């Protein structure tokens, strides 16, 4: 069992925690990590700009969801995914990895990010539309 909670990385005081490469490619994709970062848990989360992105492997496919629980803002990917379901650390809200659907509250859902895997990197589209 991992004890990484004891060395939890928390946001810096200016709120800038992102460490990923932030060079948007055509189409708005950003390289946020290398595929190797999925090991050893099959998942990781990372702040990229104003987004906290949860990247994980599901049925052989790499997917990305928002890591921000819409309930109170907790970290959805703190615990390793079990049986295809993430359980938020703070209040145990459960989310389906495949769809982002909340199993506790039908009105809540995690945003799914579009993902591309290229040159050993994981690219995520943070912004899809310029208009709100």
């Amino acid at each position, binding site marked *: *069992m*991992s*004890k*990484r*909670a*004891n*060395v*939890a*990385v*928390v*946001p810096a*005081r200016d*709120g800038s925690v992102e460490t990923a490469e932030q060079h948007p490619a055509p189409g708005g994709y950003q390289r946020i990590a290398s595929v190797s970062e999925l090991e050893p*848990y099959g*998942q*990781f*989360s990372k702040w990229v*700009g*104003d*987004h*906290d992105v949860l990247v994980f492997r599901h049925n052989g496919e790499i997917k990305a969801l*928002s890591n*921000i*629980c*819409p*309930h*109170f*803002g*907790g*970290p959805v*990917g*703190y*615990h*390793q995914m079990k049986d295809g379901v993430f*359980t*938020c*650390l*703070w*209040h*145990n*809200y459960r989310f389906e990895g495949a769809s982002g659907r909340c199993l*506790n*509250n039908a*009105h*809540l859902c995690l*945003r799914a990010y579009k993902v591309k895997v290229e040159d050993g990197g994981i690219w995520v589209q943070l*912004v*899809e*539309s*310029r*208009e*709100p």
Partner: protein
Amino acid sequence: MATLTATCSMEMDCPKEVVVWNYYDHEHVVGTHYKYYSEFRILAERDDWCLVERFYKLPIVHLRASSLGFMYMESPNLIRSLQHGKLGMVLDQEIELDDLGPERCRVTCTYRMNVPDFARVFQPLFERVITRWFHDTWVEDAPMRVRRWKVWKLGFRDFRGLDYVNQKTAAPPGTGGYRPHPVRLPVPKTPESPPGSGYKRPFDSSTEVGY
């Protein structure tokens, strides 16, 4: 009678209002503190007072225990919690909150327990257990408070999330700047199932990937 006492103090990178939110968010004890708390029940709650029963395991002595706790705000800077344990003793906890600027505060917890005179020899053990408990729960609460403050400043709305994330648009200008965190009590709860049954942790061990 003798009084056992312990005082712990730490600073936080968030306003004191976020700390108040954290203390009144009872539901997080079986989430964030799942290693210690197994169950809790809210017996009554209104505005800034609540009556809560908690089941937990104490550090160092490794005792499973439960207590009935009444918590209220004596002032915007002081939370008071009175916890009645199964052995008949009352733990009186004062949580003092001091602003150290707009995004930083100090939390000072003072614990007192009246005991029969012969039990004053337990003062060193009392201090050790309380200090460990404060530290262990602080290590888990601190990232929660800092994260809550971060997402709040990004525009987070409870039960909605971040609009720019959900709408897949760019964050509006000024996102991440100071945004007052109001103290609205009681903190909304997830409905219990079935009503009155309380909240139980779903597991007591996990593979933790981390924040």
